């Protein structure tokens, strides 16, 4: 009965549309649409966040860290002007791997590159130069603040590791000291950045987000993401030929992946 019901409809359709040619066009269009949808679905699955970003000020040691993690050897480096990315296999387990992305630290470039890669970030390694920290504490805190109040970062809450690099030098500050200083500085920055004049198109510079809890002094535990501090040395204490001291960093990467 159904077939009988459909027949006159199909006949009417065929008559109206003028032949089988138009019908085949319609079928082709539907096939294309379905393929397109499948493609988008596959794309969506592939672009799940699998990237670990290496951020930090200029001369913090990000590119050397990147080279050491991937090849184990020491390489000379210059100031990066573009990002580098590579797949990093964690120990012997072949199935888990992360994409390490080394972003330039120069002031004119860092925010641009952060914009580009922040959506794909599963974890962030913020590299700090422990030797020059005392001098640069305000700049380090400002960049860290900009990373932390970013709306995408707050939404995804990737795990954050603050790697205190250059520990092979005797004058390097310890991770505990760096943590205390950063907390104090970020506390002050909360006030000053939200009080800055509003931006030209109306959006406030500090972002609507409030870092940490109001009323209490800033603490890294108040953030929505997990924050850890680790000491490391990309150059290694035995000079250029020796191994780098990256145990803490590697363990954290395994945990995060």
């Amino acid at each position, binding site marked *: 009965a159904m077939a009988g019901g459909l027949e006159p409809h199909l006949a009417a359709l065929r008559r109206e549309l003028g032949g089988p040619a138009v019908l085949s066009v319609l079928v082709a269009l539907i096939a294309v649409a379905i393929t397109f949808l499948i493609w988008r679905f596959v794309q969506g699955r592939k672009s799940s966040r699998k990237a670990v970003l290496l951020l930090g000020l200029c001369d913090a040691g990000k*590119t050397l860290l*990147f*080279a050491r993690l*991937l*090849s184990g*050897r020491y*390489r*000379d*480096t*210059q*100031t*990066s*002007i*573009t*990002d*580098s*990315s*590579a*797949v990093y296999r964690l120990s012997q387990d072949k199935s888990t791997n992360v994409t390490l992305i*080394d972003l*330039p630290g*120069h*002031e*004119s*470039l860092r*925010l*641009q590159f952060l914009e580009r890669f922040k959506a794909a970030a599963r974890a962030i390694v913020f590299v700090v130069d422990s030797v020059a920290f005392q001098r640069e504490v*305000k*700049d380090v805190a*400002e960049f860290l603040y900009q990373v932390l109040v970013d709306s995408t970062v707050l939404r995804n809450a990737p795990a954050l590791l603050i790697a205190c690099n250059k520990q092979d030098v005797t004058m390097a500050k310890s991770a505990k000291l760096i943590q205390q200083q950063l907390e104090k500085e970020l506390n*002050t*920055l909360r*006030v*000053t*950045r939200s*009080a*800055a*004049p*509003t*931006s*030209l*198109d109306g*959006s406030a*510079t500090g972002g609507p987000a409030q870092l940490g809890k109001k009323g209490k002094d800033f603490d890294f535990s108040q953030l929505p993401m997990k924050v850890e501090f680790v000491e490391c040395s990309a150059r290694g204490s035995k000079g250029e030929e020796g191994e780098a001291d990256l145990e803490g960093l590697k363990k954290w990467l395994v945990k995060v992946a």
Partner: protein
Amino acid sequence: MLDFFTIFSKGGLVLWCFQGVRGPAATAPVNALIRSVLLQERGGNNSFTHEALTLKYKLDNQFELVFVVGFQKILTLTYVDKLIDDVHKEFRDKYRNEFQQKGALGLLNGTFDFKDDFMRLLRDAEESSKVRAPTVMKTFEQSLKSQKTVKCMIETRGEKPKEKVKNKKNKGSKKDGTEAVAAPSKASAGDKQLSAAGDNKEELTKDEILQKNREEFFRRHMKAGEKSRSPKPDAQKEKGKKPRVWDLGNSNAKVLDYSNSATNGSAEACPVEEFDPDMALGDKNREPGRLYDLEYESDDEAEEEKVVQNPSKPSVKKGGLGGMFGMLKGLVGSKSLTREDMDPVLEKMKDHLIAKNVAAEIAVQLCESVAKKLEGKVMGTFTTVTSTVKQALQEALVQILQPQRRVDVLRDVMDAQRHRRPYVITFCGVNGVGKSTNLAKISFWLIENGFSVLIAACDTFRAGAVEQLRTHTRRLNALHPPESHGGRTMVQLYEKGYGKDAAGIAMEAISYARNQGFDVVLVDTAGRMQDNAPLMTALAKLIAVNAPDLVLFVGEALVGNEAVDQLVKFNKALADHSMAQTPRLIDGIVLTKFDTIDDKVGAAISMTYITSKPIVFVGTGQTYCDLRSLNAKAVVAALMKA
């Protein structure tokens, strides 16, 4: 002879390095090169000087490599450019496989053993520069000068150059004969037509055809000569000048007065016109006395887009068959950008930037730098040249507007507060840009954040400058009375009247602030033109003596190419008159009158490009709340908008 030669990737890994005999480590100069040239979009010309070294560089945009060579500044090595090109080609070809591997792993794991090839190329380059036989000097007979006669080297007034050339050509073929002939004809210098004709009559020995042609030529000349000579006799006829007679010249004022003396002051004398109240008042439904807002039509945007699309369409149609294939080839697959592809697009972008009030020389340099960055780059599928160039230009502009140092005045004021000394901000700029107005705005902002401000009136020249600041102080104190801030006055004015030395007043103001415990001192200086040397010296002295924490240059957003000149000369004056090792230059820019420009925001780019200092504040009006901070993305979006 070279100090070093480095090859590194744009991601920062050094692939290969050659250390010359004498050279120090290559890292520091190369870092300086990267930071000041590549990152500030000054990559137009390919050489850079750093201390005692000259650095030449080349970018490979396809594989993201940078080749840098450094040598002593005092040497001028001619083979360097060729050497870089050769090394580039050879390195790229030799290690093509490593580069084409995806990601940085190829670069990390590859060993680049390039030393032998490099030494060979260096030897070849050095030899090619040496091997050039010293040029033998020409003898007098071989030179052209011996072939000219003296006659044709004498310049008579109004001598047509074509005739000279013809004479020379002719005479060159017969050196000896004509010299004797030309010498006596020298005496007949005078009317040009006669002498030329005379010379050529003596050349009858040679080609008749030549002669005929020359006569044709002269006939044409004669006609022109006659035309030029005919007005002259007419002018000769008038003997002496006759006085010009005006129609009403001799009459006095009474005759020239056309006003009706009865009408001024009496209302009825005006003829009653046809007065249509409807037309005069316009909208009948308006409320009397109310001022309506401007209405923005959103149709404008759609119209703009249509207009933008239309010019792009005809350019697509223009191709023809070859053009069609070229376009298809460009759309699909890998096509590397060449200079010829980019030039028309860059021209258009340069004109667009200049139309948006970016200074002309800066637009040119920017486009050059973008071209260097994109040359040889492989475009992805479905990207056109225009879109790639636009994208690159947009990134370059955002890069320029990003501050190179931390911009947080409140944080620095807090620091100074902790050290119990006042934070001193000095405002300088040319006349009429809005220094005093923006000073008042900034002091309002500081007071809102709980800091007490002392305003130092160091503008002792302009009439009313001190009174202006006093009025502002009174208003600010009315807005923030001492009662609401725990009994202390938030704003005070320090002034010593007019005509005194500005640097002395500033020094006294700073010590007064230190004694009284003010947090910030804002120093207002007189406006001065950048060319005015004594005033620039006075400003430089004020800044050098008082060592302020922040020197802000106030510039208006309306300024065009002048911005470049102003900033360069201000910085130069500050650098020249300072005794210190590192002179205090302009630390930041205040961009004022931003509400008067629609989207012609190019002045922001010009100023930050010239000084590489950030724009700290933007003034958008005359009330105290019209103070903003710069948003790089919004400004670049307005700049790139069609």
